[in-house]
């Protein structure tokens, strides 16, 4: 009865909006915990694919995790989407910091216009989320991650579990949006007894050699559903003009695209998947810091192609193959009671949303053919081949490496932080782990997949003095006992030797990277006429200046 007032088109639109709102919510939250400053560009001409008119990048792994958690469902009463942010120390202790909840309650607003008001309010809510994610305590912790701890995220769908946040946790409401089918609520519950986790404690220790966590064993390329221009039009709501849809045919058969044209999409055909993909063993705690933005590796411009029909309502599943948990022995990362000065004992808890997790399987790609939007050169179309065969992703095959290096301001996320499997090369997981990428970065020593409970244990040395050895073997140079003359250990948190070692291979400045913000080249080209016009206006000044030079 609730739906009778809502036209079927409105209902479809609303479901779509809620789905993509959920995906964007996850992106905003996870990106806010990466430990880096986020920057996206405004674009005056609609690119046609930025949901809610906001430039929010889509990290493919994150979208995938979210879609996996949602499993085709939408938030509804009693079925909330939760993003759990937790901290894991180098000694293996972990602690939940925040739970972000996207919930739906029964309070309906029948009068509200879906295609217009709901959409705009969802946009406003995302802006609020951008703002609020910077003001909870976990933000500052996440900006300082890398030396002694990393920040992880986990997405689950179902009942909200707040018990891991400790006593006296606080809640902040981000906002609500009423819709004809219920009211969407977005809020965050966060732990407040972080006193022992004062960030000061972590500032004086030197960086430790770390490992990259890559939980994707049989991972194909970052892929997403085929792109479609989001021909979203809004009319005025004074009743005189009605919202029109440019091409209703297109809207029906396609979904609103998920993200801006900064990702590479690849052609995948059924023939390549001979074996069913392995089952996901558990929800994965993904280290937020180790993720690379796939768009950094992509070429700039995508051309749109109409989608082939896919599974369900144009919601293409990923050709994904996933396996294993972050920690082979303890998939839930609930390591036991902490040590002194560390994390307080955490009661062992049932796995969050275990049932839902275990029920989720990667769908084999039967009879599904994706057509892809290709990057500017069509030769770049890549195929996934044979990467899934025989690799059932036993956790022991996991390449576990966390990048501990702190990324400084203005720095483009260095290429050498890219996990190997995120590289857009075939058979990435078979590539030698210590390939050129890490040649330059001697601070990172990725060991082979450790089977220890605490992956960081072997490489942790708490002393700040020089000559720390890492215990790992990959070395392009030999660490020597570096005690430069006149350097002092006791006043500065970092002595000259450590400073020298740490910064001798600085990452590239973001201003020098070609693909800042991964915006499409076409957008740059589009802005050229404006720039030329400005320059033309100032021609006299330029001429005068040239005169002064002669």
């Amino acid at each position, binding site marked *: 009865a609730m739906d009778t007032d809502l036209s079927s088109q409105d209902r479809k639109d609303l479901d779509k909006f809620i789905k993509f709102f959920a995906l964007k919510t996850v992106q905003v939250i996870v990106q806010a915990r990466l430990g880096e*400053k*986020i*920057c*996206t*560009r*405004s*674009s*005056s*001409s*609609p*690119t046609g694919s*930025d949901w809610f*008119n*906001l*430039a929010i990048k889509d990290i493919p792994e994150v979208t995938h995790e979210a879609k996996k958690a949602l499993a085709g469902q939408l938030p509804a009463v009693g079925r909330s989407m939760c993003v759990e942010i937790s901290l894991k120390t180098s000694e293996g202790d972990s602690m939940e910091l925040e739970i972000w909840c996207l919930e739906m309650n029964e309070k309906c607003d029948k009068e509200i216009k879906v295609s*217009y008001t709901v959409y705009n*309010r969802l946009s*406003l*809510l995302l*802006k*609020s989320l*951008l*703002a*609020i994610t*910077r*003001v*909870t305590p976990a*933000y*500052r912790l996440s*900006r300082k991650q890398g030396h002694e701890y990393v920040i992880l995220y986990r997405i689950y769908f179902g009942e909200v579990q707040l018990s891991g946040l400790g006593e006296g946790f606080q809640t*902040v*409401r*981000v*906002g*609500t949006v009423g819709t004809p089918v219920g009211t969407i609520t977005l809020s965050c519950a966060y732990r407040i007894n972080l006193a022992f986790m004062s960030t000061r404690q972590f500032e004086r220790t030197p960086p430790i050699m770390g490992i990259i966590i890559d939980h994707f064993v049989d991972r194909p390329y970052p892929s997403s559903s085929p792109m479609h221009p989001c021909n*979203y*039009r*809004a*009319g*005025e*709501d*004074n009743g*005189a*003009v009605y*919202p*029109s849809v440019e091409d209703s045919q297109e809207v029906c058969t396609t979904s609103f695209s998920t993200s*801006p044209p900064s990702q590479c999409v690849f052609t995948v055909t059924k023939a390549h998947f001979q074996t069913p993909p392995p089952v996901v063993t558990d929800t994965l705690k993904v280290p937020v810091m180790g993720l690379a933005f796939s768009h950094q590796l992509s070429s700039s411009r995508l051309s749109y192609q109409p989608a082939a029909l896919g599974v369900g309502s144009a919601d293409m599943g990923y050709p994904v193959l996933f396996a294993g948990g972050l920690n082979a022995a303890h998939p839930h990362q609930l390591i036991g009671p902490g040590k002194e000065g560390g994390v307080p004992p955490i009661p062992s808890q049932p796995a969050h949303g275990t049932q839902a997790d275990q029920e989720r399987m990667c769908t084999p790609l039967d009879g599904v053919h994706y057509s892809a939007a290709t990057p500017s050169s069509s030769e770049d179309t890549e195929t996934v081949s044979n990467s899934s065969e025989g690799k059932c992703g036993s956790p022991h095959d996991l390449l576990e490496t966390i990048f501990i290096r702190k990324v400084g*301001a203005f720095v483009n996320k260095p290429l050498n932080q890219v996990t190997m499997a995120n590289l857009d090369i075939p058979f990435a997981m078979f590539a030698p782990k210590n390939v050129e990428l890490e040649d330059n970065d001697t601070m990172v020593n990725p060991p082979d997949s450790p089977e220890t409970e605490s992956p960081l244990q072997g490489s942790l040395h708490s002393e700040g003095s020089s000559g720390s050895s890492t215990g790992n073997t990959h070395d392009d140079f030999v660490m020597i006992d570096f005690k430069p003359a006149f350097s002092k250990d006791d006043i500065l948190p970092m002595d000259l030797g450590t400073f020298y070692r740490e910064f001798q291979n600085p990452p590239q400045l973001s201003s020098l990277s070609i693909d800042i*913000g991964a915006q499409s080249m076409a957008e740059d080209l589009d802005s050229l006429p*404006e720039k030329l016009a400005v320059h033309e206006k100032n021609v006299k000044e330029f001429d005068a200046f040239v005169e002064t030079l002669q």
Partner: protein
Amino acid sequence: TPCSTHRRTPPGATPAMNCRAEVLEVSVEGRQVEEAMLAVLHTVLLHRSTGKFHYKKEGTYSIGTVGTQDVDCDFIDFAYVRVSSEELDRALRKAVGEFKDALRNSGSDGMGQISLEFYQKKKSRWPFSDECIPWELWTIKVNVVNLANEQERQICREKVGEKLCEKIINIVEVMNRHEYLPKMPTQSEVDNVFDTSLKDVQPYLYKISYQITDSLGTSVTTTMRRLIKDTLAL
């Protein structure tokens, strides 16, 4: 430290129909004034800016994309998100810079307020000039404190950071009320509702003004009212 208060209409402001008013108060050190003001103003404008409208046939329009970026404060343990628009950032920095200078020149007490007002233009027939009808007014009351030593400054960094977190939450609460917003305009009306002069984003029409309070705390004796965004001149 003063806590934030929400009053319907601050003294000195002209009550207008449908104009809601929010007041925030902060105590900061002199060098923190600019960053604190920018954090609040940018947060408000983030919520009150859209992408550029492109009108098509039949009165429909499409909306450009708003980018965002993180800003770290140098003198406050705080970070905020602002709209990615250099023009907008410049305009706010100019206004805040003038406010900061005025505060500094006003004497030791250092109290003042900066206001961000969103308004709509209503065309009038000649000889009357167009009216500006405010629909939302944000006032930030600032109290500048002087600190004695480095330790106090360090504490102030953290405390002001925490306070600003509270302010952001307050702002978001107000935004979430989904109260009056101007109707989406037709093409001919768009300049009466939005500031279309920026090339990459489109905030609602706004103006920033400030007042310096004299040392007695009475209502303004030295009023320096500067309009950064002007209404149509007579």
